[in-house]
């Protein structure tokens, strides 16, 4: 299976935040088929899917790679008398781009097409160009109320219609590159690792877009030497300030922040430089906005760094990434995994005792 095919198949599996259970088994099967290198697979509706690859060496340190498997979406909150599904956001999506957007509704007895309603220009006054959040949150499924009630219930989830395509210069456009493109980068990087002195855990966590529950559960894995969280970053676009984004085609970015492990961040950045892997830096002082924010300081704390694949149009049906950046991210994952045993965390015993 080629990388692009793997990405397309991964994106097609529904894993709306809070409803990840719908796609965990199928995702686990796909990852195992693509990577064919893991010794153990664990599935749990709270933490997600966890793969373990042992290096076979005694007392090997554990390194963890995390990417979130959940995606933004919507949840059915009611059925109107006219037969429309009223929905609420599940994760952050901009209601201004919903009108006339096609969706897939995961009903009680199958998957159905739907379209968010919109108002045509013939019925709008020229001065009336303000987005209406309340009106934006209704989905047309082409049914009357009775038909709706036989196929849908309050609590059904909805995702953007999956359309994954290529643009020029090997760019990929699709909904849900956040964060499935990073899952692909991690899998691509891990699958061919041969010379590793660490046991590797790949964690595809739930709930990043909503509750953060998956990230918190990662912290309870014992004795993690260090962790690399992979999530997407804003790619350069005219409407985004330079300080808030990174470039396409210049590799992954490493995030500098007060809320990640600075030493580990430098270590990973230097891995890229030593191996001539294109890499960028971005600064998010107060928070990286990723699972690293939870993993770093939860329970007994885990040294964390953040690596990102740049994408445009984040949280829209048309997110764009460069396949080249995914491949370079995978190379960095591979390089880091092979050197991670050399990383020394801050943790040490300065003066021995029996109380701590």
């Amino acid at each position, binding site marked *: 299976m080629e990388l692009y095919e793997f990405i397309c198949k991964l994106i097609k599996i529904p894993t709306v935040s809070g409803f990840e259970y719908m796609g965990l088994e199928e995702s686990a099967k796909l990852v195992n088929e693509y990577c064919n290198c893991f010794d153990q697979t664990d599935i749990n509706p709270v933490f997600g899917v966890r793969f373990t690859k042992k290096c076979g060496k005694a007392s090997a340190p554990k390194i963890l790679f995390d990417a979130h498997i959940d995606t933004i979406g919507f949840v059915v909150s009611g059925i*109107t008398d*006219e037969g*429309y599904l*009223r929905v609420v956001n599940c994760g*952050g*999506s*901009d209601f*201004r*781009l919903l*009108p*006339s*957007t*096609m969706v897939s509704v995961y009903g009680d007895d199958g998957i*159905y*097409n*739907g*379209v968010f*309603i*919109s*108002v*045509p*220009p*013939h*019925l709008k006054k020229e001065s009336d*160009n*303000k*987005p209406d959040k309340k*009106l934006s949150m*209704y989905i*047309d*499924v*082409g*049914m009357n109320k009775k*038909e709706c009630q036989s196929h849908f219930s309050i609590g059904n989830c909805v995702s953007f*219609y999956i*359309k994954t*395509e*290529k*643009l*020029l*210069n*090997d760019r990929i*456009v699709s909904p849900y590159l956040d964060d499935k493109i990073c899952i692909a980068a991690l899998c691509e990087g891990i699958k061919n690792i041969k010379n590793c002195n660490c046991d590797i855990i790949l964690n595809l966590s739930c709930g990043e877009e909503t509750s953060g529950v998956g990230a918190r559960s990662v912290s309870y894995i014992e004795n993690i030497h260090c962790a690399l969280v992979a999530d997407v970053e*804003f790619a350069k*676009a*005219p*409407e*985004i300030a330079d300080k*808030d984004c990174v470039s*396409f*085609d210049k590799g992954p970015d490493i995030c500098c922040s007060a809320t990640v492990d600075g030493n580990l961040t430098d270590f990973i950045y230097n891995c890229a430089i030593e191996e001539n892997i294109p890499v960028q830096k971005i600064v998010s002082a107060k928070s990286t*906005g990723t699972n690293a924010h939870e993993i770093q300081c939860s329970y007994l704390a885990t040294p964390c760094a953040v690596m990102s694949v740049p994408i*445009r*149009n*984040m*949280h*829209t*049906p*048309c997110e*764009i990434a460069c396949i080249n950046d995914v491949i370079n991210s995978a190379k960095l994952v591979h390089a880091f995994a092979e050197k991670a045993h050399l990383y020394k965390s801050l943790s040490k015993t300065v003066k021995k005792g029996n109380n701590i």
Partner: protein
Amino acid sequence: MITAERLKSFSEIDGVSGCEEQIRDYIISDIYDYADEIKIDVMGNVLCYKKGKKRAPNKIMYAAHMDEVGFYINSVSDDGLLYFDTIGILTSVILGKYVLVGKDKIRGVIGSKPIHLLKDDDRSSYPELNTLYIDIGAKNKDEAIRHLGSYAVFDSEFANIGSCITGKAFDDRVGCMLLCEMIKQDLEYDSYFAFTVGEETGARGASAASNRIKPDICVVVEGTTAQDVAGSSGADVVCKVGEGATVPFMDGGTYYDISLYNKITNIARNNNIKFQTKTVVAGGTDAQIIQRQNGGIRVIAVSMPCRYIHSGQTVADISDAIQMKKLLDLIDNNLDIL
């Protein structure tokens, strides 16, 4: 045959106003063996004559427009982004959408600033149109400059949606489809057909078409706004999907001929044709221009109700098109009393 598949074949062909050549070629190939005369005028309208069993007491022209709403690329940035203007489309339905640029159908998307970076002011309004761009993945201006001046269309999914269908350009490929079906069958009376250009830019082809043919009566076959959606009630609904052919007495551009309206709605009623009228005076058709040509032409419209018209995912019911065809056949059979 009036089927969803047939409407799909018409609707998926590109034909933004001013660039109707592909849909024009398709229509001509569809009707070539059946029309008795086919001409293309200087505007690009396709004008046809079909001999019927009888000479018509009134010269009748059936009209549908070939063009669809879309985009024109008006500038290319140094980063290879395509800036554009729209034909008949509001900003509210273009954010986050897929498009196809030009005859080569280069795929692109109209993105949007990530929600994480929006300020409160951003959320309460749409971006200005001149700040939006189509991203085709080009790295620089050199890769993209050839698209300057190109059109772009929505890259839409044609799909079943409950008992309805969704896709682009039902306005007015449904009209084109129905006119083609009429041309392919035996007609009661000699009839003229006009597949017009430029309706979405102000009915620009209709004048030349109607002045060339000079009909006494014109039946405009269209897609029209249905707003039977959540939050709409009473007259604001305009017309309803699934409730049959829409015959308006008036819209935003035309007072339709009241005697035609009364006679045709009676014919529909007497023959159990499902039909409705429009309860909001809104929108417009080629009729607004046709009516005023050649000393005055009696006009009527027969339309398919379409939700989310002028967007990439219109929703309609093919059964309404079937009712429209039945009504058009009855108009042909009853031309002597109109």
